[in-house]
């Protein structure tokens, strides 16, 4: 896949070559160059048409989340009940489609369980988490966590995301509900509850996304986005609050770890206006190093200057999937039923 990146670089050069022949009458020469967005080490070219399908046959509503399986396939979750799951290859060709019973399909996490891969679907409308195999067969349902004593009824529980630890423990973030993080063992027995709604550091407003940060194997951390607070909060696996990463102006959806970086779809920015999203990329020190579609990251005395959208490329990014070539697939919420966008790293 290095070939693909080189290929794109070459076509970019060819375009520049054309204009250097003197055909620059009407337009500045950069106008027809491939756009490159992002900063520093993480810059990308944009394919808006990736994954486009016949809208009648394979419609999408909100494109909520995407993951990649061990075969390299890109799995998209949408809340359109004609096909909740669309499975693509990396070129955007559709390989499979299934799922009609997930009206509130929102969170999608893939976990490899001793060589077999499973999906965890957090469904806002069903108020539960559903574990399926990659063909869509339901293998387990995690209903609303009555046993925590925190919930009067299932409506108070609106799970948005799941994360699965190496030992099989499951964490569910109740991001649109009561803001708790529910921690189960691999069999689905309740182990712990932490978080909840509030302004204190260990509490949340919109605990939207969660993941296991295993970049330092000796120091496993649970990362939770507090989207309305523009913060990424760090907890021990036992649920003890460690600290927060401040990303002012960035309404981050879910953290995605790939190699040493954290990728975060940023659904709104600035004052939270419609259509102001971009992508945030943090390095191994949890510093923002690139914001494709967003403002140049600047730190003053370790404090990030408030972020805002600068280019109207994305509307409402809701998740980022990173493939082995470090190309990105961006699923968007409330974006006129458009399909995901692919970014090629240059």
């Amino acid at each position, binding site marked *: 896949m290095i070939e693909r990146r080189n290929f*794109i670089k070459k076509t970019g050069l060819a375009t520049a070559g054309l204009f250097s022949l003197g055909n620059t009458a009407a337009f500045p020469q950069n*106008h027809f160059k491939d756009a490159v967005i992002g900063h520093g080490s993480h810059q990308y070219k944009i394919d808006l048409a990736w994954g486009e399908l016949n809208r009648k046959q394979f419609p999408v509503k909100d494109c909520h989340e995407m993951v990649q399986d061990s075969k390299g396939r890109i799995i998209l979750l949408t809340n359109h009940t004609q096909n909740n799951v669309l499975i693509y290859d990396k070129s955007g060709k559709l390989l499979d489609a299934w799922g009609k019973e997930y009206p509130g399909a929102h969170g999608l996490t893939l976990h490899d369980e001793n060589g077999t891969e499973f999906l965890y679907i957090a469904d806002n409308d069903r108020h539960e988490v559903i574990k399926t195999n990659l063909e869509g067969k339901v293998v387990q349902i995690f209903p609303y966590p009555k046993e925590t004593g925190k919930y009067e009824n299932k409506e108070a529980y609106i799970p948005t995301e799941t994360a699965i630890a190496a030992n099989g423990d499951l964490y569910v973030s109740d991001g649109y509900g009561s803001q708790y993080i529910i921690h189960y063992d691999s069999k689905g027995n309740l182990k712990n509850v932490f978080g909840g709604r509030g302004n204190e550091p260990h509490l949340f407003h919109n605990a939207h996304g969660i993941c296991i940060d295993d970049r330092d194997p000796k120091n496993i951390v649970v990362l939770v986005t507090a989207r309305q607070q523009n913060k990424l909060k760090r907890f021990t696996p036992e649920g003890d609050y460690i600290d927060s990463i401040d990303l002012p102006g960035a309404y981050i959806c879910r953290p995605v770890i790939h190699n040493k970086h954290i990728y975060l779809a940023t659904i709104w920015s600035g004052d939270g206006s419609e259509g102001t999203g971009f992508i945030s990329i943090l390095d191994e020190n949890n510093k923002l190093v690139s914001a494709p579609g967003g403002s140049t990251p600047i730190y003053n005395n370790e404090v990030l200057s408030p972020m*805002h959208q600068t280019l109207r490329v994305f509307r409402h990014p809701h998740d980022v999937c990173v493939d082995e070539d470090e190309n990105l697939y961006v699923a968007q919420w409330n974006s006129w039923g458009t399909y995901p966008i692919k970014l090629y790293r240059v």
Partner: protein
Amino acid sequence: MAYRNHRGKIALWCAIFMGLSISVSCQTQEVALLVNSKIVLAPPIIQIDSLLFKESASATLQLRQEGATLRYTLDGSDVSTSAALYQSPIVLKETVELKAKAFHSDFQASETAAITTRKVKSDLGAAEIQIQPNPSKTYSASGRKTLIDGQKGSTNFRRGNFWLGFQESEILVSLSLEQPTKINKVVVSVLNDQDSWIFLPQKLTVVSNGISVGSKVLENCAEKTSKQTKFVEVDIAPGAYSTLLLTLSAMEGIPEWHAGKGTPPWTFIDEILIE
């Protein structure tokens, strides 16, 4: 937002490639990448230390995009490539509409960002104010005095105690001034945030002692427009007044193009001024 339609353009340039016999095979162009000219800049972010001011206010413009230049006007005219270049904070001493746009040699110019700042000419702080019906409990800020405290909110209506929110067809605001005051204008600061189902009022009328002294109809309140705070000016028949009754009438229902079509819109007010 211009995207998606770039495939035709790529094909066109492939034809030109071949016409010039350059050794690039268009068959290998399997990915139609977005080109610079299809990308629109986001508008600059305008920040003002105080939207209402007695002496002066300071405005900054920002768009942290390499190579972008920001230009602005203060006289309500469109921002063109020859408008004033933004270099340092702009000092405002009068009521003005600040308009700003971002430009870049590679990308399309942004939409216009606009904000009106207002010099406060008369202090209503000592007036008596009554509002009927009461604002929604969720958006009642610091009560009725909020509307004459000289404090203006931002477009983020949830932040601070600035905005009173109503989901009513009519909102009545009565003002009793300490003494008869010459008034030629009533200014009502309202919010337009259609994504949050908040629309501008359709009509404002001002009555004093049972006699209509001014009114204003906002013809465009049902049109799709971006989030902004707006000062609605109502010209008042010249005279000295000690009481004023303002009526804000909301649209009957949210317009057809909106997800909330047919339901009563919200009206948000944060300040009332007289001049």
